[in-house]
């Protein structure tokens, strides 16, 4: 792996995004609009908003980054640019790290926007530290990016890649504790939710919002999510082949 090639890839991906202002706008505005919608959905129940707000702060960046990166990587593969790149000295890890860094930077902006909006204008009340909650959200976005890069290897078309949202993200969304607390689910489902990375992402956000300071449980959540990022990127790199049939 070479820092120079990783950074060049990051710069290239960000330049591609810059030529596509509508995608940038969607990535940055959609989470804000959804959060606003949620705020007024629970207009009469501010406590409910305070309860699920932090969870969604973790989910929106995760989901958006997952979809965008899986399609971006798919395009790289189907346009022939990947085949050509893999005849150059670029390492597979350079490419994936470059992508992760580029979308990680976008996630940083996205999380900053939606967190500021939620805690400011929308009046989301949290007991914990804002910085810690934002950190959890950014790490979750990175996880979405890494999983998107990995899973795009299993799609041959944009149609298939987009289907990974209902196939892969929705089950995690149902089981992550957003709709029902995880400890009240059927045992089998609880075990299932224990091995889904999004559960830790959402738990982490809830804990970061719930109390000031870093508890042991929050640390576990963060470590699990952070550890999943290189694992997913490594698996993604393993799916790239210099030689194809």
């Amino acid at each position, binding site marked *: 792996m070479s820092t120079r090639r990783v950074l060049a890839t990051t710069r290239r991906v960000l330049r591609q995004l810059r030529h596509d202002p509508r995608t940038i706008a969607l990535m940055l505005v959609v989470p804000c609009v959804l959060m606003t919608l949620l705020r007024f959905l629970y207009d009469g129940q501010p406590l409910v908003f305070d309860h699920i707000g932090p969870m969604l702060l973790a989910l929106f960046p995760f989901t958006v980054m997952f979809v965008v990166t899986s399609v971006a990587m798919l395009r790289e593969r189907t*346009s022939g640019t990947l*085949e050509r790149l893999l*005849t150059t000295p670029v390492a597979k890890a350079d490419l994936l790290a470059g992508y992760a860094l580029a979308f990680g930077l976008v996630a940083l902006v996205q999380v900053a926007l939606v967190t500021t909006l939620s805690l400011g204008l929308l009046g989301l009340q949290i007991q914990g530290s804002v910085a810690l909650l934002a950190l959890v959200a950014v790490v979750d976005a990175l996880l979405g990016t890494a999983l998107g890069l990995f899973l795009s290897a299993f799609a041959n078309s944009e149609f298939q890649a987009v289907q990974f949202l209902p196939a892969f993200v929705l089950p995690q969304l149902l089981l992550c504790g957003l709709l029902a607390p995880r400890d009240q689910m059927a045992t089998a489902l609880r075990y299932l939710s224990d091995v889904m990375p999004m559960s830790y992402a959402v738990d982490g956000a809830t804990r970061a919002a719930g109390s000031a300071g870093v508890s042991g449980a929050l640390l576990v959540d963060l470590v699990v999510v952070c550890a999943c990022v290189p694992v997913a990127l490594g698996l993604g790199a393993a799916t790239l082949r210099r030689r*194809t049939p």
Partner: protein
Amino acid sequence: MTGQFSACRIQRMLNCIEVEHLRVVRGGRPVLPDLSCAVAAGTVTGLLGPSGSGKTTLIRAIVGVQQVVSGRVSVLGEPAGSAALRTQVGYVTQAPSVYSDLTVRENLAYLAVILAASPESVSEVISTVALTDQADAQVSRLSGGQKARVSLAAALIGGPRLLVLDEPTVGLDPVLREELWSLFHRLAAQGATLLVSSHVMEEADRCQRLLLLREGRLLADATPDELRERTGADDLDQAFLRLIQSGEAA
């Protein structure tokens, strides 16, 4: 014995590409059943044959992106696709493989960093393919011929010793085609080796040597003049036809 050995070594050095008993199967079909051929260094060699004859598969094997069943492909004395070759071989795919949502310059600047080429080389290759006026235009807005030239420019970054071009002149107007062939010969004169595939026989005359491929088999390895002489045909299209007919008769 020693003399034979060194003659063999010299031959190796003169050949930029050597393919021995290459077998490639794609989708259960042997696209290249057992192919052997060589490309001399410093030449413009044409790889000709109808579509579906295995040209692209051979090219992919030479640049090291094709899974092969058996056989040996060596490029500049190294096994095809080895790490040492990744800055030495320029590859132009059939469909332009550049980022259509970037400008010409942004595309090439990225590759320049990847290949550790100088930043100046970007402007140089842009002027080599005559795209200076379009340098800051987004590739998606360019014509098909211009896109093909961006793809060619990308392969020229870093001054590779071998350029492998898969049908680089398809769909280009005659003037542009003529300019590109002149460029290919200029590059060869500077010491590069070029392997250019085409299914248009009229382009064969611009090559110093021809490899004729049909159904994955090498039909001929000759200069254009040798080919005419051998078949008694004046134009190369006819020569190709007669070769096929004599091959089927034999």
